[in-house]
């Protein structure tokens, strides 16, 4: 077996927990040792001379959104005060079960907060990138798009055609050339796969 | 709409929990680990029941009533009577029981009781048989939690034992069998009743793990701070049921010491209960609303 394919199981002791070894993702420490949390492959990340032990699960990980995560969500309902959406991916990890989230009016943009209009920022069905705010209520994640890199990633026009961004606040339908207002995200590869956007935005050839 | 302040039991924060951890053998109310709080007991409190008792252990208050009916035995156990436990978690006891909140606890309690009373060595159901395969006595033990202040399992088991001790089973005068009809005549004389044999009736002791120490008779706050507890049901020095409550885990050695502690405390409880029940004079007129 190759060295990087070291398989471990929950509860397996990985190493001593000392100044040079700390526990990272997928591990925990107890009584001076580092143990694995999940079944997966051991990974050692060296940072500032400290070995961080991590375990990565090869399949779908069971994760829930946490404060600070960038998530991909789909807008479902919009009102004057907020819009409701479903979180579908956390980073590049997809979720089997979608989590309810809410994006308040004042969290849409970082500037000119009093001029924000929810209806001019999103439409139901839009796919957005957003950051998870601290969790104050159980069952309801709060999101924020108040960053340049966050906002609408993929949207379709009224007629169901894909739109492309033309400014920070507008997107244009590639078929009808109708412009619609949106809180547009400046996409950076770190947050979303370029191919994905390309595939979502291309028109389907009807059969 | 006004949202009223909740009265739910306190959930102490981590810092407070730290204080509850007992490194020294002294608990927040000054007791040592094996000490029990004083309690108050009375029997014959429900006049229309065949037997009843009420127990108050600090803030925990339990009322038990026993009802008797004639029933047909289970086809697979023709020689035995029936014993059924029902726990009612009244919302009066704690707001957490509102709606279906107490259901889980009620099921846990009644399951624990019925499994503790299941063995013939503990409680002989054959004594409740009237006629083999046809008729038997069925005892309904109804347990009502009036107030919850910790250590429910112990309190309930003591109250149940006292109620069964107090239970009077009518004597049978005659049995007439006519085909599939059975006619049972019960003695009219209220004094000619038989008492149940409850010497083997189990007492349950909750041994609670706080930090790495074990205590008995936890109060509500101590229960909140504990990661888990072992409930040991003891009958005549033997263990008839062990169950765990809470979410924690035990090292096998800790677990064994819990069992030893449980048995010794159960013996002390048994002694006190026998002594106290012995003090009861017949026809004493005491109501718990006194």
């Amino acid at each position, binding site marked *: 077996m190759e060295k990087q394919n070291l398989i471990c199981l929950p509860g397996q002791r990985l190493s001593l927990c000392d100044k040079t070894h700390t526990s990272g993702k997928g591990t925990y420490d107890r009584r001076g040792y580092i143990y694995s949390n999940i079944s997966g492959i051991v990974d050692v990340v060296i940072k500032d001379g400290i070995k961080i032990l991590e375990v990565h699960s090869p399949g779908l990980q069971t994760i829930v959104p946490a*404060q600070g995560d960038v998530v991909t969500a789909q807008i479902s309902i919009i009102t004057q005060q907020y819009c409701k959406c479903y979180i579908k991916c956390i980073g590049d990890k997809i979720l089997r079960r979608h989590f309810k989230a809410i994006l308040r009016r004042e969290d849409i943009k970082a500037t000119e907060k009093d001029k924000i209009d929810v209806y001019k920022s999103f439409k139901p069905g839009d796919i957005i990138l957003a950051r998870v*705010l*601290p969790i*104050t*209520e159980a069952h309801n994640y709060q999101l924020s798009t108040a960053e340049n890199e966050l906002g609408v990633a993929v949207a379709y026009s009224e007629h169901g055609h894909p739109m492309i961004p033309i400014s920070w606040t507008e997107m244009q339908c590639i078929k009808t050339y109708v412009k619609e207002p949106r809180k547009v995200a400046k996409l950076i590869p770190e947050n979303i796969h370029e191919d994905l956007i390309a595939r979502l935005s291309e028109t389907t050839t009807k059969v | 709409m*006004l*949202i*009223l*302040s*909740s009265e739910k039991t*306190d*959930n*102490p*924060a*981590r*810092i*407070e929990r*730290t*204080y509850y951890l007992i*490194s*020294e053998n*002294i*608990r*927040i*109310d*000054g*007791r*040592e680990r*094996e*000490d*029990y*709080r*004083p*309690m*108050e*007991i*009375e029997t014959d409190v429900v006049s229309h029941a065949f037997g009843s008792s*009420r127990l*108050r252990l600090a803030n925990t208050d339990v009322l038990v009533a026993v009802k008797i009916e004639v029933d047909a035995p289970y086809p697979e156990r023709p020689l035995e009577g029936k014993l059924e436990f029902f726990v009612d978690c009244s919302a009066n006891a704690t707001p957490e029981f509102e709606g279906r909140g107490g259901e889980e606890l009620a099921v846990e309690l009644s399951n624990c009781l019925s499994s503790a009373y299941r063995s013939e060595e503990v409680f002989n159901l054959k004594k409740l048989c009237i006629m083999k395969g046809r008729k038997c006595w069925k005892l309904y033990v109804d347990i009502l939690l009036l107030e919850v202040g910790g250590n429910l399992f112990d309190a309930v088991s003591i109250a149940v034992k006292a109620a069964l001790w107090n239970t009077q089973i009518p004597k049978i005068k005659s049995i007439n069998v006519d085909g599939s009809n059975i006619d049972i005549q019960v003695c009219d004389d209220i004094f000619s009743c038989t008492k149940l044999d409850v010497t083997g009736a189990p007492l349950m002791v909750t041994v609670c793990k706080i930090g790495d120490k074990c205590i008995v008779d936890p109060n509500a*706050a101590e229960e909140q701070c504990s990661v888990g507890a072992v409930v040991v049901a003891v009958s005549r020095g033997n263990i008839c049921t062990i169950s765990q409550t809470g979410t924690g885990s035990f090292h096998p050695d800790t677990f064994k010491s819990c069992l030893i502690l449980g048995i*010794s*405390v159960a013996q*002390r*409880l048994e*002694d*006190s*209960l026998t*002594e*106290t029940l012995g*003090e*009861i004079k017949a026809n*004493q007129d*005491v109501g*718990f609303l*006194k």
Partner: protein
Amino acid sequence: MPQKIQMRLASNRVDTSVVINRDIPAIYTPGQIISNQNEFLRGHGTYEENGQLKASVAGVREKVDILISVRPLKSRYHGKVGDVVVGRIIEVQQKRWKVNTNSILDSVLLISSVNLPGGELRRRSAEDEHMMRKYLQEGDLISAEVQSVYSDGSLSLHTRSLKYGKLGQGVLVKVFPSLIKISKTHFHNLSIGVSLILGTNGFIWICPIINNTEENVGGFVQNLEEVVPKSIRATMARIRNCILALAQSKVMLFDSSITYAYEESTKYTLAELLLPEVMADVALSTQQKLILSETE
């Protein structure tokens, strides 16, 4: 050798009342006529029927000029501005915490009413809002002062003083709010090495005396590792049991009544203090001592 388990019959119950030759004020019951005259102002706990004023709760009559009200014997805490309270955080919300203070409605502690770590003069940023659970989370106990009372009767608290803030290791005892005697200070450092906060809301906090107040910045610093020595634990347990004994016999709680009770209790062991007759005895002798000291 473990103690014998105390089990008694209800017929042998101990009488816990300690009233000695004192004027007991008239107690009104709901529906009882308080006044037949028309000259009155209807206060709390009363209602008007056929020109008569009647009590709607069981309690004692209080009269201020022509305003007549009945103060219930047993009630939740009704806060007044300036009261010292002890409360438990039950919910973390946006910009505020919900606190259980034994009132009818949950009290609130706004993030703007607390001293955040890093000194008093600090602007509260959006970051702080996001860090709220780091400062105080569900289950934490705080001491605070009532800042204002909202129109619905719920309280707004503040901890903007060094003596208020998060509480550390110690024991919480709950009694009826009416048993707490209002006095100049509700913070007491007893000479026996125990510190007391008598919350006007009936929540009493008992903890070891904290020596260095310098470190205590707004009460967000806690020492989890510190082990309370056995002798202090014993004293704290004794104080707790004494307070409960006094509360059971309805003796007012304030620094001297608690100190007297502590002195009286020393003839018993700690565990004995849980017995009803011992509790009644401690309460009774405390009451006598109090009367003596009053007459002196």
